[in-house]
């Protein structure tokens, strides 16, 4: 069921998956922006420097990964960097999926919005803003989407209780 191959770390992925279209595209675009990479459970994860995520998405789109599928965040509280953003991008032609990952520090987490690349990211970024409190710069309509407008706190953060009063 599983791919026996597991590659951990940037060097291992660049060597072991040198022919992968996403890896080739990222090397041709800007190898410096790739801070980490892994290949496990048959899925390729590329960690991108936070300030480069929009450019990285444009590069991926040009390389054939043209369908934005999903985007969400993970809170690694109390570890640092605290937040992880995971973008899942699908290639309609190659029928293949990659994951781009961005790591953000705790203090006022913010990252460029990728709505200029795919307009459909709009709701997903609003949801992450609403439930994690991560800001997306240049987002056209960054407002709470699930919670009431006057809600205090970010429910999906790990320091927000599952039950009881906040």
């Amino acid at each position: 069921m599983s791919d026996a191959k597991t590659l951990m770390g940037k060097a291992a992925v660049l060597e072991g998956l040198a022919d992968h279209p996403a890896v080739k595209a990222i090397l041709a675009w800007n190898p410096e922006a790739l801070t980490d990479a892994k290949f496990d459970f048959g899925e390729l994860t590329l960690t991108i420097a936070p300030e480069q995520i929009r450019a990285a998405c444009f590069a991926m789109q040009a390389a054939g990964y043209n369908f934005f599928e999903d985007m969400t965040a993970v809170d690694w509280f109390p570890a640092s960097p605290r937040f992880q953003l995971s973008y899942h991008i699908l290639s309609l032609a190659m029928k293949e999926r990659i994951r781009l990952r961005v790591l953000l520090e705790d203090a006022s987490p913010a990252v460029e919005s990728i709505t200029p690349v795919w307009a459909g990211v709009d709701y997903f970024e609003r949801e992450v803003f609403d439930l994690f409190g991560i800001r997306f710069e240049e987002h056209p309509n960054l407002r709470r989407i699930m919670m009431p407008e006057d809600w205090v706190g970010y429910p999906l953060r790990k320091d927000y209780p599952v039950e009881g009063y906040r």
Partner: protein
Amino acid sequence: MAELAGMPVLEPAQGAKDQHMVINMGPQHPATHGVLRLVVEIDGEIIVRVYPEVGYLHTGIEKTCEAKFYHQVVPLTDRINYLDPLSNNLCYALAVEKLLDLEIPAKAQWMRVLLAELSRLNSHLIWLGTHALDIGAMTVFLYTFREREDVLRLFDALAGQRMMTSFIRIGGLAMEAPLDFLDRVQAFIRTFPEKIDEYANLLTGNPIFRNRLKGVGHLSAADAIALGVTGPPLRASGVDLDLRRDMPYSSYEKFQFNVPVSNDCDCWARYEVRLVEMRESVKIIQQALDGMPEGAVKADAPKIVLPDREKMKTQMESLIHHFKIVTEGFAVPAGEVYQGIEAGHGLTGYYIVSDGTAKPYRVHMRYPSFPTLQALEVMCKGRMLADLVAVIGSIDIVLGEIDR
């Protein structure tokens, strides 16, 4: 244009304040299929802007999952898309099985295909009935709900539950299907294609239905891709993507079926695509019935899969395993996986992050209605207000999966 508690209301565009009006459609409007609130700016009867306001059903299922054992999440998944419960179960189970690297027996995989397709029929039947009802064709609703009742009775016989089945579990199925289950499915799909003809007879030639759908709700392929639209609306816009065929899971690669695609990009195309999809589902179910393999319906993993009741009563080891799984859960190796499937409404995905404990660190669900709702404004701009109802029906949204 009264301000609802704390919610900003769309302001008419500058310079158009005199002619434009802002109205609320929903959250209690019957044509919004749940609690969807649309703030619509209209110029006479022409739609200028549509602003969907969601979150009325938000229950924080993603947060709840973090406090549950892996098995306990299965019933939560049913409640997200309550029209297509078995696909939710399937997607979650596949994602966890990927993390666990579990081998699922062939019979369980084939049963999962059969159940996912029955579930798709259930979902499409509700869509067809309510969509036609919105347009004004009342009869079809009664007919589709008659057949949906048959599907629900099958689920009832299978799981003891009509809607919240929770029948697909981590490691296989909850239990063997009842003895006559496959015969009952056979009896159902023997007559079902005639029923689809019946719906088509009522609707396809109906001039009112045609005129309400043809050329309405145009969504180009480029827009559909940019906005993340999936499922029948995407295929009706000419993009040939079906994960069952393109990235097969649960042995879908062993089944032969066609993926209907239309280039018309309108509500009518979505109607036609879904009708053909129902026929294809019947074909898949027939193949599953004909080729159903023998064997177990649960993986051989006693520390993960709950033991049979009989074994628990006779074997001490099974009793211990049962006790351990129920009280402590089972540890899942650390890592992150994403599993996508083609559910009735489109591309459903589960993203699970494990930190090596018995509870998921993070569960995120990608449900097709959420991004598809963004396409509503593109499809309705410049059209009549009445077309909005047709378009909402044609994209087949489920509010439970938008709000989660």
